[in-house]
């Protein structure tokens, strides 16, 4: 067993995956999670794209395998200070817990975009406009109903809410919303085959394995209709439906459509913890995400010796990419620990 200790901040997929690999190599790990349970955002998911894997099962596997004697899991603790003291790293929490370690892995993840910032889309103002996160939670409950308790006959999904958007200052693509929208549209059609599902997009970025096939299946098997255009405005009608204004940019025509439910595919933003801790260590990069040495140099190391990054604290990543990223970060940490006395 090594004497070296690694502090992992964040108990989502990246933190759990890295903790597992480090512990397997006999390092001591202290893992901090701000929520009462580990798992991060997949706690809210029913199924994962593109293979519709059971999200709770995936989460259980990730969580179960870190129950090891050399992993100390501290949940319900929010780290608000991260400082380097000589060769050691010190973290302090909101309840005055102080822990020292030889290396730190920042796995503080992302936060979903607050859709209220897009006022024109009416979220938080009108009923029957929800986010993709809320839609997924409804899926977990097994039914999708409007505020009035009716089954939606027509539903629309809108991609790129808070992503690729100059108005909100988020110029980047959140990478997962396209395929996630396809997944949600399929899930809806599975529940209500006779209902109509529309998905509004800028362009469909189906760049992962099996994504394109899923996109095709959604159209051929489930009859999801894809419309290339953003929604300029959503407003409630007299009969509690939502009127959408858009443009079908392929047909070159303005479009007005009334739906029972509008689902906003909210993008990823850097989390408060990422902004705070990256800021304290001068590694706060674009859009508040943590900055590594560089995509083409070392995407896991930072300019601070012993401070490493994994997962969506760096930029939007899919679940699969996050897992791969965390494994690679663990290798880099072990390499670093072997290089120091």
């Amino acid at each position, binding site marked *: 067993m090594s004497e070296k200790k690694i502090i992992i901040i964040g108990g989502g997929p990246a933190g759990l995956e890295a903790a597992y690999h480090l512990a397997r190599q006999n390092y001591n790990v202290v893992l901090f999670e701000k929520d009462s349970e580990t798992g991060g955002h997949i706690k809210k998911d029913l199924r994962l794209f593109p293979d519709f894997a059971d999200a709770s099962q995936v989460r259980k596997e990730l969580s179960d395998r870190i129950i090891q004697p050399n992993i100390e899991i501290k949940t319900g603790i929010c780290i608000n200070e991260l400082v380097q003291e000589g060769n050691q790293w010190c973290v302090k929490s909101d309840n005055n817990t102080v822990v020292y370690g030889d290396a730190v892995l920042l796995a503080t993840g992302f936060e979903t975009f607050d859709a*209220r910032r897009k*006022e*024109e889309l009416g979220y*938080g*103002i009108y009923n029957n406009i929800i986010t993709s996160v809320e839609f997924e939670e409804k899926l977990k409950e097994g039914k999708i109903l409007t505020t009035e308790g009716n089954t939606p006959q027509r539903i629309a999904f809108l991609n790129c809410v808070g992503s690729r958007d100059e108005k909100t200052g988020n110029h980047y693509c959140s990478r997962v919303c396209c395929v996630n929208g396809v997944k949600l549209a399929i899930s809806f059609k599975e529940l209500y085959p006779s209902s109509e599902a529309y998905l509004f997009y800028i362009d469909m970025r189906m760049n992962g394995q099996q994504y394109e096939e899923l996109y095709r299946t959604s159209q051929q098997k489930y009859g999801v209709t894809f419309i290339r255009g953003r929604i300029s*405005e959503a*407003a*409630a*009608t*007299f009969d509690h439906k939502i*009127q959408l204004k858009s443009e079908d940019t392929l047909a070159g025509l303005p479009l007005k459509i009334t739906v029972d439910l509008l689902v906003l595919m909210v993008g990823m933003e850097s989390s408060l913890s990422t902004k705070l801790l990256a800021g304290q260590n001068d590694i706060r990069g674009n859009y508040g995400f943590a900055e590594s040495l560089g995509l083409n140099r070392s995407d896991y190391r930072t300019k601070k010796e012993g401070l490493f990054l994994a997962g969506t604290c760096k930029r939007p990543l899919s679940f699969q990419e996050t897992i791969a990223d965390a494994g690679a970060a663990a290798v880099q940490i072990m390499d670093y620990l072997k290089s120091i006395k």
Partner: protein
Amino acid sequence: MEIKKQYWNEYQKEIAQDDYFYERSCIRQTFFPGSEATFLKILREELGKKIVDDPKIHTCTGIGYHSDIVPFDTTMAICARLFSLMNGAGLKNYVPSCVTSFGIFNEVLETWKHHPEELEKTRENLRKATGREFEVPENIAHPSDIIYNFRKELKLKMKYSLVNKETGNPLKVVEHIGCHYSKIFSEKSIGGTEFPHVLAGMIEEWGGEVVDYPERRHCCGFGFRNYLVMANRGYSVANSRKKFESMKPYKPDFIVSNCPGCAMFMDRWQYTIAEMEDITYDDKGKGIPVLTYEEMTGMLLGYNPWDIGMQVHQVQTESLLDKIGIEYDPQDKYVGVSGTFLGEPEKPTNLGV
């Protein structure tokens, strides 16, 4: 609604408290001739403010500018002359009556902020053309901003409220904001582009209920070239119709606007649509009355409806006055200032009066 209010709070603006220089609109005195006089009366007599109504004012070029017949250099020089008139009156707070002018002035000031060389060029152009110098205003507020700002004080002086006297229910009011008030520079408006609060705040304060209908933010139909180019006028009517169709199910009691063009077109096009299609958007075949915010304020303060110009509306306003319980003499409706009868206008074929 709480969330909506939270967002409205994010778009607040500085509004001068007193000492205003008023610039009348080119078109409002023809469209709604009592509105500007009513505003001046409210400010001077109800609120005790100083406001200068200078007869030397002139166009801001707005309509010509937006129709591509006046170059921006000319617009800047003409706006600069208006500012110099304000300077001459010893004032720093500019109040353009027209929403188009409000947009133009903000655009000019924003241009000068980002391109100081344009400001210097304008100074030189004005000097060469008129020998005048000018300083930019410290504050530009639309008159609707000022009424909004003093809505609580005015409420204390009001004889009536926006309540149906028979049922005791709040009147349902469609508020329509001029595009150039909030859609060019969100931060220059109260409430921003999506949920402007300038008129909604007055309506709610004075007892009414704002109708939130799907086409609330849609253009009134004027749209400058939609109307100014005769061949495009069908678009103008079609846009107004879209709004009327959208608000109709909510049974609004009246429409209020802060823009000269919007109030005009939403009023007159109801007549046009009634004549073209025999359709009105109320239950009684008389149309939905359209008021300016000055008329709404004056009406609630108890001013004689015929003194504030309600009789020159296309859609007649008596049904609204009766709902609120406002006293008026029908015999005085077409009596001029001199006391002589001016004659009654011809009645439309389809739109009820």
